[in-house]
């Protein structure tokens, strides 16, 4: 196990290194540059711009800038925001909480709902429910997240008045119930795609397990069907789902950005958009790196958990 783990960790570090190079190159090779905002406003003379450029180290060759940036990054200094002169890590730390809250709650919702739909679809294969679930999942994967958010707001906030139309809590009221109330809308919106994905994989994973010999044995022993499904089938069918959840992180992050925009949720997605608007390169770069780290962490944890849950996997790793 440890050999496998070390190999995967090394791979992740190498990958992260490549990721940082790509991210840095894309941002800095794009036309414009960090100072174009100031240049366009006309408030600054060319001398001012040159001085600022030298101050921020933007006048040096790109590889030098990259090495310098990477050196600081490894030392825990992610740079200082151009916008409010705060350290990038401090800003990100202030925004990551709401995003994680949203992502975790919607993943939980999607797991429960998706597993239920998937199991039912597998048990009653080719039934009307199964067909509708298949079609529903495909439509769910096709709906633009922001539009689904608008529809939810229109129906439940504008129409029925049940849910708030945005924000994380009412100003002056930060109670748990109030926060929960605000979380419902964005959580449902973000969970839509995940639920569709989960139900599809759960269904096929369950179908694979359900035809195995040991399930037939359990049936032959006369165990109740419910018991067989939960204790024998579901346990093994859930195994591949670990991987699916780990690999789902990028989709979830993209969805979170859009959901946050629609519901004015003060998370990392909103921060990213604001930073892009201000051409705040250090913050944009910091968030890009963080999302890549989260994505890699997701697949790494999935691999490790899978290895623990199914020791046979180690053989393939070598």
């Amino acid at each position: 196990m440890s050999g496998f783990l070390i190999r995967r960790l090394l791979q992740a570090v190498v990958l992260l290194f490549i990721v940082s190079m790509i991210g840095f190159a894309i941002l800095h090779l794009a036309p414009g540059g960090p100072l174009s905002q100031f240049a366009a406003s006309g408030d600054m003379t060319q001398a001012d711009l040159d001085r600022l450029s030298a101050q921020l180290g933007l006048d040096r060759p790109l590889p030098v800038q990259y090495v310098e940036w990477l050196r600081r990054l490894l030392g825990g200094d992610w740079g200082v925001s151009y916008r409010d002169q705060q350290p990038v890590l401090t800003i990100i730390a202030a925004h990551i909480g709401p995003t994680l809250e949203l992502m975790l709650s919607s993943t939980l919702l999607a797991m429960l709902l998706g597993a239920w739909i998937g199991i039912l679809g597998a048990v009653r294969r080719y039934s009307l429910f199964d067909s509708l679930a298949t079609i529903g999942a495909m439509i769910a994967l096709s709906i633009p997240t922001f539009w689904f958010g608008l529809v939810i707001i229109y129906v439940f906030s504008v129409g029925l008045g049940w849910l708030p139309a945005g924000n994380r809590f009412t100003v002056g009221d930060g109670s748990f119930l109030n926060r929960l109330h605000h979380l419902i809308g964005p959580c449902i919106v973000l969970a839509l795609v995940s639920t569709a994905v989960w139900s599809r994989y759960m269904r096929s994973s369950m179908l694979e397990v359900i035809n195995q010999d040991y399930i037939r044995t359990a049936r032959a022993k006369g165990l109740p069907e419910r018991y067989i499904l939960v204790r024998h089938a579901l346990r093994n069918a859930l195994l591949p789902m670990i991987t699916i959840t780990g690999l789902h992180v990028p989709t979830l992050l993209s969805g979170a950005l859009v959901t946050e925009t629609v519901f004015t949720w003060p998370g990392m997605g909103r921060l990213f958009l604001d930073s892009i608007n201000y051409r705040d390169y250090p913050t944009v770069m910091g968030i890009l790196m963080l999302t890549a780290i989260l994505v890699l962490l997701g697949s790494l944890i999935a691999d490790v958990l899978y290895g623990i849950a199914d020791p046979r996997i180690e053989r393939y790793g070598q």
Partner: protein
Amino acid sequence: MRRFWRHKLAVFGAATIIVMVIACVLGPMLLPYNDTHIDIRQRFAPPFSGSHILGTDPLGRDILARLLMAGRISLSVGFSAMAVSMAIGICVGLIAGFYQRAIGTALMRFVDAMLCFPSIFLLLAVSALIEPSVPSIILLIAMTSWMEVARVVEGQIRSLRTRDFAVAAMSMGASNTRIMFRELLPNAIAPIVVAATLNVAHAILAESYISFLGYGIQPPTPSWGNMLENAQSYLTSAPWLAILPGAAITLAVTSFNFVGDGLRDALDPRLDAR
């Protein structure tokens, strides 16, 4: 039963796509209103209320005409971005699958690294920095969506190149390029076609996301995504502004996904063997 459903859905999807394309190409010429015609007296007309079938927007422009014109843009962005990203993905996948050692590993690590960025983040980071126009948005979407294709092609080529026909071609002294494009690629065409169909769906969605967030196709050029850009502020007074373009996107993307799924079943019967 299931096969039948899928088959039906794929046909439905294909029919919808054809109808949409025809409507977007010919529709604007048949309508009494121009999509850019501003009529302030007719602002916020709800659908089915007067001469404007689907109502009007905050400037009194006919929504149906705008939807069709936007469809031209959104669909052509979808198809063009697919074409470019398939070209990149196929080339990278071919090379990586054929030359497995150093080049292949390096290319696939690059693919892995690109996939570490959640697609929206990458799209937004670049689209905000460049001058947004229809061609640049197409390139941008293609640049962020070729990786899955490359993976599919690489996997196919890697397994095909050890098969007898490929080995035979090699022993006959065929050039590498010839083996890649004439022997291996045609045999990997089925998954490529499926990937291409799903890629159009992805590209239409991607365009709508960045346009909705204000970094995609810029007004006055209409696209389904940017028609939704300001719709949220009118959600109470004029909900049709938000509902209609979103429904168009969903319909188009669903159709492509249905077709892709149906093609996968038709081209690879083994998948449904269970």
